[in-house]
């Protein structure tokens, strides 16, 4: 079994941060704030968050904030709930949540809750349970969850529960591991996991493990390292992770590394990217790979960061 090439991955992440001229980089320009969250959280899990200049990052992040309180994916773009969470998560990593005007951010998010309890991504009204998770996670980190109507938010998420025990993006939407992570995470944070049929969903989730040991996102699809996070964290939150073969998953994730140039890809021998590097390392953390910081399955931040938010000074 291979090993996690920590140094190479750190180098890869730092290089991506600097390299802004490739076509791949420009095409992802609009979600750079997500990229910052993926890269920086990975660095923290590897114990190397101090390799970056926190002040520079924070100053850039604040330039992404709009009048409305929401954050854009990069300077010049429009605000959206997706990037607002990443901004708050990165500030939490650096223990710099105090640079925020919390009311301003909270107002942006509460303004996105609809009558039925669902959340829109931005003023243009796209509704998705991903946004429910984001709103709940974000306000929870800012310790003002009571600013939204939690009961209605939970009811909307429950209305997206399917007969296979999973969750979709909107009522009637097919169960998908990404959406399941969002819904289970939101229910976990709001103390509402009793709405989940843990045995039913646990079986659906554990059957995501295919012969190669990797996990797919829904039945009869290919395995992908990013599901190591979404399926695994969901299983952990409902205490059914022992239903998969952790050894086999370890090997799959490690096989997806590019040990020469750093980074992790969706499948062995595919091109690497920051997204899959984060999910691979986060997945390994959930599997208790030695030397990695523990990550919280609901907030998707290191456990020490989450504990600091709730129990620290």
């Amino acid at each position, binding site marked *: 079994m291979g090993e996690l090439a920590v140094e190479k991955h750190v180098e890869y992440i730092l290089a991506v941060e600097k390299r802004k001229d490739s*076509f791949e980089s420009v095409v992802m320009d609009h979600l750079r704030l997500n990229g910052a969250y993926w890269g920086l959280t990975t660095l923290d899990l590897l114990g190397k968050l101090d390799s970056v200049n926190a002040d520079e990052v924070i100053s850039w992040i604040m330039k992404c904030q709009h009048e409305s309180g929401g954050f854009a994916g990069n300077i010049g773009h429009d605000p959206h709930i997706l990037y607002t969470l990443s901004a708050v998560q990165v500030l939490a990593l650096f223990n710099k949540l105090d640079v925020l005007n919390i009311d301003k951010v909270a107002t942006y998010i509460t303004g996105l809750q609809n009558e039925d309890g669902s959340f829109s991504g931005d003023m243009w009204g796209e509704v998705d349970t991903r946004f429910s998770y984001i709103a709940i996670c974000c306000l929870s980190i800012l310790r003002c969850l009571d600013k939204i109507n939690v009961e209605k938010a939970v009811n909307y998420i429950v209305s997206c529960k399917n007969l296979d025990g999973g969750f979709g993006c909107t009522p009637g939407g097919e169960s998908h591991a990404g959406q399941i992570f969002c819904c289970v995470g939101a229910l976990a944070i*709001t*103390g509402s996991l009793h709405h989940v049929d843990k045995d039913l969903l646990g079986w659906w989730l554990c059957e995501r493990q295919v012969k190669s040991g990797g996990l797919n996102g829904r*039945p009869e*699809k290919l395995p992908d390292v990013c599901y190591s996070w979404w399926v695994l964290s969901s299983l952990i939150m409902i205490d059914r992770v022992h239903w998969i073969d952790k050894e086999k998953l370890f090997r799959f994730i490690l096989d997806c590394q590019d040990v020469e140039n750093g980074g992790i890809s969706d499948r062995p021998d*595919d091109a690497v990217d920051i997204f899959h590097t984060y999910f691979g390392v986060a997945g390994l953390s959930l599997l208790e790979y030695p030397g990695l910081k523990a990550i919280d399955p609901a907030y998707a931040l290191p456990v020490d960061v989450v504990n600091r938010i709730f129990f620290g000074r």
Partner: protein
Amino acid sequence: MHGRPRKAPKPEDEAASAAKAKKLRSLQSQFFSFHHNKIYTKEAVELSAKLLEINPESYTAWNYRKLAVEHHLSQPESNPDSVKSILDDELRVVESALRQNFKSYGAWHHRKWILSKGHSLIDHELRLLDKFQKADSRNFHAWNYRRFVAELMNRSEQDELKYTEHMIYTNFSNYSAWHNRSVLLSNLLEEKAEGFLSKEKVLPEEYEFIHQAIFTDPDDQSGWFYHLWLLDQTVKDDSPLLVSSWPAHGSDLFLLEDRCHNGSAFSPFTTLHSDSGSFPVVLYFNQSVEGVSSSTVTVESGFNKNEDLVWKPLSASNSQTAQVWVAHLKFPTSEFHSSVEVSVGHSKGIISSKGSQHSYPSTFSFKVCVQPVERDFSEASVAENISWREEDFKVYGRQTQESIPIVSFDELSIKNDHEPTASSWRAEAIAKEIECFRELLSLMDCKIGKLTLARLLMAYDVMAFSCANKLVHSEEVLELYNDLMKLDTSHYQYYKDEHSLVFLQQVTSSRESLLKHCFQYKDSVSSSICNPICLRLNNLSLSQMGAFEKLLWVQMLDLSQNELRSIEGLEAMQLLSCLSLRNNKLRSLTALEPLRKLKSLRVLDISYNEIGEHSIDTTRYLCSSPLSHSVGSEWNKDETVISGVALINYWEAFFIFKELSLKQLDIVGNAIADEKFKSILVKVLPKLKRLDGELLD
């Protein structure tokens, strides 16, 4: 980001990429200039289309186009034709973007936004969807869009159901189609729509249909979950039902206030030592319910006013729903006899979490006898150390004429006023399924065949024999799970957990088998046996605990030497005062959450587990804590130190233990149990008298 092969970058590739990047950057910056200056000329709008053609994920460009549309629609010159032309342009841009990336959230949402304006032709949309389905029948964006269009068009659920049938016949391996079918069918059944009156008619046809999928390729998962849903629909009555209670119907309860009494006149199964002046009444339903209160449950006793009773749900967090509910009845301190009658659900109000009314009212009754204090043994009982040694246990050998007041084995424990008739169509459907799957297994050894057969046999036993409580197929089911553990090793633990549950059902299904596990504990201080019956389920390779509805009477439980990683469900055992979980696989303090509901628990042994060994806590969100916003208002969120304990390091110990009134705790053999931790425990558990065998002062 997905599915691109890894290759070393060649210099010419990098140069080409840099050139493309430069072009895109220039387009982007021009676009920003138009967007920030609110310029919506034809030229500007066309530029945004170019940008989206290269990069459909550039969400700000979609926003800009919406602003442009609104700008043009609000112009005085706008008329129905110009409006339609503008919207058609948008639809073309979306189609072109979708060709680039048919999973683009931004593109699909833009299309919905345009359609919602109400000026476009909807029929075209279904044709477009057909094209996308042919390209990728699992594209969930397309399926979502289809639901959106179907609603706009007011297409009937029956028509959409036919569509799923068509898709499935095209390719059985289409989970998305099966999923949509399950949604439509369950709606139609619930609405009792025309042609869909009863499950009795619909389900057999669906079974025929799903067999074609499963039996064609048993390794293809597409049909598995649909089949499980059909099974669930066949077996379960939607309406909630009371399945068990404590005290059990017809039992004679003896309440004693001192720890020891002479005389074996009282059955140790129904004798309760109570130092709280009250005893619990426990209701165990077949599913989670809400609405259990003194309005929906009436307790008639000579010594309590029904309206004073407070029924509490046994669930973690803020939930007002639970499968198990408890209320405490205060009893008088002098010698006393009375009979108690409990009526459940005679007035409306108890509802399942799925919204079904409780419609099978039931009654049970029992007698209570209170024995006053005779001698004061309180000092001795304080010093008493429960050590759980093998030699301290004696098999309960007394000839039992008396029934063990758990579930009466020969008759219903609950007297239901209206018994749900075990409809024959259900039993028939299950029997037929059993036949089909036996046939499949005779042709090929497959995992889904064995797993489904195991589930079917258990369901059949529970349904057909609920009165007699016999489990005729349990040996075969245990064999099937043993086979599965070898056949599908990746999911070994899943089958192990199921195996443990079936095994426990088997053990608790008859008086003979249960008695083999009943022992009396003799303590070293006094020579008389003054402790209740200990149910010993130790050393049985149990990875999961269950059969709680049969074990509500247990006061002392030995689960040592097993493989338990969780004690989910244990909160139902309200009478537990002594519990051993020694030598198991508990990984964290949060796994002990169910114990917080056990108000009578005094002796706990969690020694030799794995608490403190793991960096990842799998029950972190299944316990009440600030992380999951499930702590009561008594916790001040700004407090970081409580009772001298720094929460950031010891929050689990604080939240789990602070409500327990433990007298004795054993924790040795866990990585967490160093001296510092033990001193924290002493602070958090003020009533603790013994820790790891040592008397505390």
